């Protein structure tokens, strides 16, 4: 068994290396607030996680430059986890060990895998995964959803489709297809969308987009046979762009509605003219439809020689997700309570109609619901830009 010894020699060396690497905190009169974060900067979802991470870091830098949270500087420790669950766990444990009081995650994979530990450690956790499964207060009591859930997004899309169909004088049965990524992320809105469509007398078809497919002609044919007038897409931008291009070349006439992970600048860039007219259910207002909430981020980016238009809507998403977390922390400090995960959770649960400057519909949490909001505006690609076509539509 001397073989095992190698293991320990290595662990010892590594331990020494690691302990030598402890981070030093910043100075200042008041104790810094430690927040942990993980992003996917090199993995499968790096294209959207990178601007999201920049938005969070940008908010922290901007907030600190403007006095921090009630004089406390935010100290955000973050790293790339390459969308690997094991590495997400390592980083989460490491940051918790170092005393972070809140955590910003990223995808469905890490959010789901960490939710039991998060609840145990009492660390408020936000991420860019808007799966309604995370709203179960027993299973995920420390997870907060800032964006509109995928289910609500789909319901809002169907609601708009019903009105649009009526306005256009459609008299046949409304037929909705939902085509999605073949994963929990993709299937997340299916059940609620189906129930809502059928409750309103429509017909519903759900189709998975096979992983690694180079074209979606077969799926388009299936939707044509079904007679879909509206197609909801729950996928990320690159496969959605392929779908749109195929639809154009096949002369497929239904109206596409992208949910938030394909309704972004990347879709327009990748699909080009095939993206024209596509609708988008976007919980975070894109920079092309300027609202007050864009101002600080844009001004901050201009000092860095960039702009919000260049960074895109995922930057805004990261910025405001962090802003909501900061609002909870600020409340704890203002109330003179000790800064713990438990108190931050309680403070977040008192947030009512938090104004994001029109970026999202106002955000409210309560002890019985961690669903930030249930409404969003719809946008449409016109001239290569996402332009607003509706006011806030609620899923309720």
């Amino acid at each position, binding site marked *: *068994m*001397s*073989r*095992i*010894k*190698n*293991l*320990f020699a*290595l*662990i*010892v060396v*590594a*331990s020494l*290396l*690691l302990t*030598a*690497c402890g*981070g*030093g905190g910043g100075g200042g009169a008041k104790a810094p607030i430690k927040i942990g974060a993980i992003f996917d*900067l*090199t993995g499968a979802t790096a294209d959207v996680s990178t601007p999201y991470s920049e938005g969070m870091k940008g908010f922290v830098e901007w907030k600190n430059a403007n006095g921090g949270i009630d004089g406390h500087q935010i100290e955000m*420790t973050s*790293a*790339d986890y*390459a969308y*690997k*669950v*094991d*590495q997400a*766990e*390592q*980083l989460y*444990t*490491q940051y*918790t*060990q170092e005393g972070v009081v809140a955590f910003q995650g990223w995808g*469905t*994979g890490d959010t*789901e*895998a960490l*939710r*039991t*530990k998060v609840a145990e450690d009492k660390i408020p956790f936000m991420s860019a995964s808007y799966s309604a*499964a995370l709203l179960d207060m027993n*299973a995920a009591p420390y997870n907060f959803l800032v964006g509109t859930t995928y289910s609500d997004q789909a319901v809002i899309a169907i609601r708009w489709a019903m009105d649009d169909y009526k306005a256009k004088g459609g008299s046949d049965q409304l037929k909705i297809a939902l085509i999605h990524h*073949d*994963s*929990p992320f993709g*299937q*997340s809105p299916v059940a609620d969308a189906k129930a809502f469509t059928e409750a309103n007398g429509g017909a519903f078809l759900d189709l998975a987009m096979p992983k690694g497919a180079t074209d979606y002609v077969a799926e388009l044919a299936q939707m044509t046979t079904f007679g879909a007038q509206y197609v909801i897409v729950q996928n990320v931008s690159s496969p959605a762009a392929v779908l749109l291009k195929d639809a154009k070349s096949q002369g497929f006439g239904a109206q596409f509605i992208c949910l938030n992970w394909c309704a972004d600048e990347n879709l327009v860039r990748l699909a080009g003219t095939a993206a024209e007219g596509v609708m988008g259910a976007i919980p975070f207002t894109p920079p092309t439809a300027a609202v007050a909430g864009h101002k600080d981020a844009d001004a901050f980016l201009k000092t860095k020689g960039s702009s919000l238009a260049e960074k895109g809507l995922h930057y805004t998403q990261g910025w405001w997700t962090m802003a909501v977390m900061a609002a909870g922390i600020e409340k704890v400090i203002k109330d003179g309570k000790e800064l713990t995960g438990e108190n931050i959770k309680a403070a977040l649960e008192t947030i009512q109609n938090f104004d994001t400057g029109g970026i999202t519909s106002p955000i409210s949490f309560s002890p019985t619901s961690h669903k930030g909001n249930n409404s969003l505006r719809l946008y449409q690609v016109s001239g290569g830009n996402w332009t607003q076509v509706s006011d806030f539509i609620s899923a309720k």
Partner: protein
Amino acid sequence: MISGIFHSTYEQDMALRHTHAQKIRLAILIVFLLVFPFLANRYYLTLANQIGIAVIGAIGLNILVGYTGQISLGQGGFMAVGAYTAGILTARMGMPWWASTLVACFVTAGVGAAFGLPSLRLKGLYLAIATLAAQEIILWVVTHWKAVTGGVDALVVPNPELFGIRMNTDFNFYWLVWALVILVTFASVNLFRTRFGRAFIAIRDQDIAASVMGVDLFKYKLLAFAISSFWVGLAGALTAHYRSIVTWERFTIDVSVLYLAMIIIGGLGKITGSYLGAIFMTLLPAVLSNLGRVVKGVFPGVEGIIPFIQQATFGLVIILFLILEPEGLNKIWKNIKDYFRLWPFSY
């Protein structure tokens, strides 16, 4: 002057430890194992536990790939079978965690043997593709068989308890997982002193010759798949109980490739190799990530490119290892031992 290790009795020949140095190293190792959890914080315990699970999984895969020569890309899928079986039995049917773990091992062994059926006809890359199919099929079933696996939703598993003590805190789980690591090591080391293990090695070295000698290829290949999958299922079941949640995204094709990399870098056909590979592949990202933090502190300007440097380093280290020592870390370790044993008159 030592010119080699020679045995003059059968007892010596059959011993697992031959030299004093080996016994001393083993003693130091055991002391370290016993002391480590009292000195380590939660982060290091998490790493040690992840390593423990990886060692079990890597030993399992090494039995199949390293000892029997049957390439498998189905590791992630087999771990998923273990994790979901254990998770479902405990969460839905209230089976005690240790019983569900045991059942999971047997179920995974069965599934592994079933997917090992093509191995009689397929070899090398063709078998690799067949096992890749196993990976894809298993994950497809896991995500689509809603009635059993819960489909899209993560499966929450109750905390494992033993005599009222919760076993999946980082500290308690350490004892569980490393006790099992030792058990698996003993079983596997001894496996290759039996006719079964020797048959596996014969098949790896030359299957036709093995067949001529009277080794039943079909039986032993399937047995290799079953035994290998048994340990892999254990690794999966432990993951489920440790994290108390099972999600399919933990068992993707990346995991299969990662484990294959572990045993190749550690050393194919060596139990020590499984250890070294598992330690190396688990710690390398952690070390790189921590180095990244130091670099970030010293040169704040390079923050944006650190993740890419980490990825490139990860790849580079693996390539360098394969070029400089194709037999893996195990060979490097052996070279170091030889150097000191023969010092100062190495030849």
